[in-house]
């Protein structure tokens, strides 16, 4: 069965409620779902604006999250404040290269990849998007699910800071405090999650390249 052979609710003049899934006639667009009260929309076209707004807010918070210290450590003889990258380098110097790599991937590479992936998905949406994606709708849908799934796991850095700050309070011997980057990092994660949630994944499939190969190219 080819993908084009499957009709959508929209093709049949129906709207599925985004929350509870009940189907309504197209004339119900913008009125609340009679079962759960969620506002019906066949395609949330305005959502792309919200995706970009949260995306930009997330990116703006992500910059200070990397420039300011995440953790402030006070030891008997030393005082140190380290950013995410400095923290990873310190661990690498201790000889724990694998753990340093895990931290770099989880706190630096994955957030970057998330920004790139959401931008790519939003730009590839037709007819609003800027370019025609080379990846199939199926691949892009998998990418979307991955971003949605991984997004929340970035919060782990903030939890680690919270645990360490609560745990390492040994008077003079050693104490750890959260740095300002903890706040901006948390905000960045929350905004990126909101950005991914605002995205209406049904639009990925609407004018998928496999379904409509004759669509005219947009001039760059």
């Amino acid at each position, binding site marked *: 069965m080819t993908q084009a052979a499957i009709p959508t609710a929209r093709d049949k003049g*129906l709207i599925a409620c985004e929350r509870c*899934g009940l189907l309504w006639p197209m004339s119900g667009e913008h009125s609340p779902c009679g079962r759960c009260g969620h506002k019906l929309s066949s395609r949330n076209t305005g959502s792309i604006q919200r995706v970009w707004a949260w995306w930009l807010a997330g990116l703006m918070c992500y910059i200070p999250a990397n420039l300011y210290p995440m953790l402030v450590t006070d030891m008997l003889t030393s005082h140190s404040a380290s950013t995410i990258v400095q923290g990873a380098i310190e661990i690498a110097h201790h000889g724990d290269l694998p753990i340093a790599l895990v931290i770099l991937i989880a706190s630096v590479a994955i957030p970057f990849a998330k920004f790139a992936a959401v931008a790519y998905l939003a730009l590839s949406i037709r007819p609003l998007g800027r370019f025609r994606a080379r990846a199939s709708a*199926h691949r892009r849908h998998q990418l979307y699910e991955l971003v949605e799934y991984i997004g929340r796991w970035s919060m782990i850095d903030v*939890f680690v800071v919270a645990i360490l700050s609560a745990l390492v309070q040994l008077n003079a011997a050693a104490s750890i405090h959260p740095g300002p980057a903890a706040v901006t990092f948390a905000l960045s994660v929350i905004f990126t999650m909101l950005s991914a949630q605002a995205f209406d994944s049904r639009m990925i*499939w609407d004018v998928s390249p496999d379904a409509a190969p004759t669509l005219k190219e947009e001039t760059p």
Partner: protein
Amino acid sequence: MTQTPLQPIGQDDLIACPSCDALYHVRVPQVGERATCARCETVLIAPKSNAMLRIVALSITNLILVVSALFLPFLSISRAGFYNATSIMDAILAFAQGPMFLLSIAVGALIVVVPMARMLLTLYVVAPLEFGAAPLPRAAQAFRLFESLKPWSMAEIFVLGCGIALVKVADLATVDFGAAFWMMGVLVVVVLLQDNLMDRWSIWRALEKRA
């Protein structure tokens, strides 16, 4: 709203994939099997045997675990004669001083309030269905809220965070797990089991049939 009330369409014979809008005729799979979308592989219907009773039981388990884990120590460290034990409450309050108190509120919400709220909502929605009663008022809204809170429930991420924190302080001091750590570990399994039992299509239909 001046519109005439809309009539829902074919709720028992049509289903649209929530992720890609593909439209299908409903064929309820056997208990334990799953109906998935042919183009994007999203699970559409997944009936489980005795699901509602098990969901209620797991929600109660979950609530007991969270409430008791909250104040018990979950990690303790010692170094050079100094000792400190920390509870989940302490971790939440780690940011409480100064302008970072907003972060305390966020952490508390993500690891305790949202997971607990989701369990209470589950009980509110599912328990009357399981015991053959009519749904409680606004049960549909409660279930909608339950579903939209799902990504914000981060107890399992917090548990993994404990592991990483442990590695980070391992060469600074000696660290031991407390009772609450193991309770949170069990909680992660309970949440996974419950998510696996939750079949939104069946619950929405049950809510409607009994209303």
